[in-house]
């Protein structure tokens, strides 16, 4: 049974008559011990999906889903106390700006042991000394040197990379089964990025912990993830294993994302960009969201909304999914192409 099952998750903001749709009928499942990348550009709804999973979307956001379960618990109808017992212990999340995510008033040691005092083992909940030892152990696991002295540091005294490691230590303190990492390396420089990703990967393998890596950086995902979910404008448009999804993307958006990477544009003077702009709250296309910008769009794309279909584990939301050579299939004909607006 998958650890996390999400079916038809919708998150909207604003008035019910004219809502701004942040997440549009997203469905996915995460197995135990998997490392999954959730990729999309800014505004595609990746972070909102994660926050909705944790129940952190508050008014004026509205969350609705056909199913949203974690290890069998129904996440949609949890009471406040039940949710607090679940998240923090079995579900954890780390954020983009590590220094802003740590409370500036308290030492690093206090913040790590805070979660232990609530969700830790018997000994940890009772004894401050046991918590302190565990905090030192956690800091050593995330490769922070001189861990015992570092316990007394305040967040503003740490560098970005250190702070992110402290965040990771806090998150894994109670041995969560699912760790959601929301752009964990975006605020860090490249060398530290590599270290943090290696660390996350190692921790996930050692603890059989599911890691949901949310990022806009395809390189991060290619490096670390086993499976990728691609999101566009709040919709889930493709899913596939790494490296298959990068070698042979099925959805034109994924293909365009890959084509825009500098590595794939070495022979050109200008990067291949996707024309047009991401639909905002009030200009969502009626059918396929990518139709106005897609190089392969035909009349059907603006008339009929595509559903996710394809072999299991390799689905995409397109009427004419691309084949291994990158050409649309399923009866697409170049003659019917509608010019991108």
């Amino acid at each position, binding site marked *: 049974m998958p650890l996390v099952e999400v079916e038809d998750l919708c998150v909207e903001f604003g008035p019910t008559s004219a809502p701004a749709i942040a997440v549009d009928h997203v469905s996915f499942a995460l197995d135990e011990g998997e490392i999954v990348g959730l990729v999309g550009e800014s505004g595609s709804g990746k972070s909102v999906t994660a926050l909705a999973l944790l129940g*952190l979307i508050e008014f004026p956001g509205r969350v609705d889903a056909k199913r949203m379960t974690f290890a069998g618990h129904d996440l949609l109808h949890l009471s406040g106390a039940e949710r*607090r017992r679940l998240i*923090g*212990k079995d579900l954890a999340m780390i*954020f983009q700006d590590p220094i802003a*995510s740590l409370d*500036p*008033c308290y030492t690093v040691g206090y913040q790590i042991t805070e979660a232990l005092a609530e969700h830790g083992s018997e000994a940890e909940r009772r004894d401050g000394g046991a918590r302190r030892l565990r905090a030192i152990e956690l800091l050593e696991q995330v490769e922070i040197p001189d861990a015992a002295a570092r316990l007394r540091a305040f967040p503003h005294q740490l560098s970005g990379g*250190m702070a992110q490691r402290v965040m990771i230590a806090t998150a894994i303190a109670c041995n969560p089964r699912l760790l959601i990492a929301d752009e964990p390396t975006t605020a860090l420089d490249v060398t530290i990025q590599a270290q943090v990703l*290696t660390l996350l990967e190692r921790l996930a393998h050692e603890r059989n912990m599911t890691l949901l890596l949310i990022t806009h950086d395809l390189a991060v995902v290619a490096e670390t993830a086993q499976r990728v979910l691609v999101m566009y404008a709040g919709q889930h448009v493709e899913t596939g294993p790494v490296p298959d999804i990068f070698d042979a993307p099925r959805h034109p958006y994924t293909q365009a994302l890959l084509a825009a990477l500098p590595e794939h544009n070495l022979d050109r003077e200008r990067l291949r960009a996707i024309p047009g702009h991401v639909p905002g709250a009030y200009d969502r296309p009626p059918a396929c969201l990518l139709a106005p910008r897609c190089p392969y769009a035909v009349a059907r794309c603006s008339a009929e909304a595509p559903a996710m279909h394809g072999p299991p584990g390799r689905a995409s939301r397109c009427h004419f999914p691309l084949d291994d050579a990158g050409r649309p299939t399923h009866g697409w004909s170049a003659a019917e192409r509608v010019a991108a607006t």
Partner: protein
Amino acid sequence: MPDVAPIATLEPAPVGPLKEFWRAYAQSRGALIGLGLCIALVLIAIFANVIAPHPPNEQYRDFTLTPPVWGAGGTARFILGTDPVGRDILSRLIHGTRLSLAIGVISVTISLTFGVILGLIAGYFRGLTETVIMRVMDVMLALPSLLLAIAVVAILGPGLANAMYAIAIVLLPHYVRLTRAAVIAEAGRDYVTSSRIAGAGTTRLMFSTILPNCLAPLIVQATLGFSNAILDAAALGFLGLGAQPPTPEWGSMLASALEFIQRAPWVVTFPGLAILITVLAFNLMGDGLRDALDPKLKR
């Protein structure tokens, strides 16, 4: 993927927060003077019984209106002279320090406690709760503070305790506004979301996570509120609504001495000077604290 080396350099042990604060605070000479004066005032208040040469309410009928020791007819027995009923002014001033500091501490503590709680509730829950609380505070702020204090004392009756409650009420809206603004600014920050994810409930979020990060402006305002409280107490005492005779409160000493301003100016001057120095000391300290604690002013 090639092995990446772990972090190699050892950073020096971080400086403790108290030392860091002292270093920032001690940069301003005014702040140090303020701190020195405040400590001196506290010591005077604590050891009043020992320092004062005479009991504050003892009337020396043979020595009414004696000038200070340097004036004509002054004696070393009453260094700052005596008041119209023969009480030693120096001793009364020293014992008055106790009262003034007590007024400051009690009024500010009461005001701060309720103000912070109301501000937290308003800033955290927003919506109708916030509107109700803030509009009530706006009404209180619309009235001049002294008038409001007089109104409260008129309802409760004159006396030092009632004067303290009145002053606490007058100071309340400032703390509520300050706390609410700080809470709103902090509540949207990432670490609050982090805490929420770690499972913190409402009370814990409000008091343990958000409140400590709002303390800096509150500490400064509390120190400045101290001097406000002392001034207001003196004003109330001057109007006869605060401390009642024979309590040696500085404001009441001023009130009872007004008619002697030409004949025996020392009876008016010294209590006034005492108020001036105390208020100055707390204001200097408050300014120093603000410079040291306000992150926006950090150099």
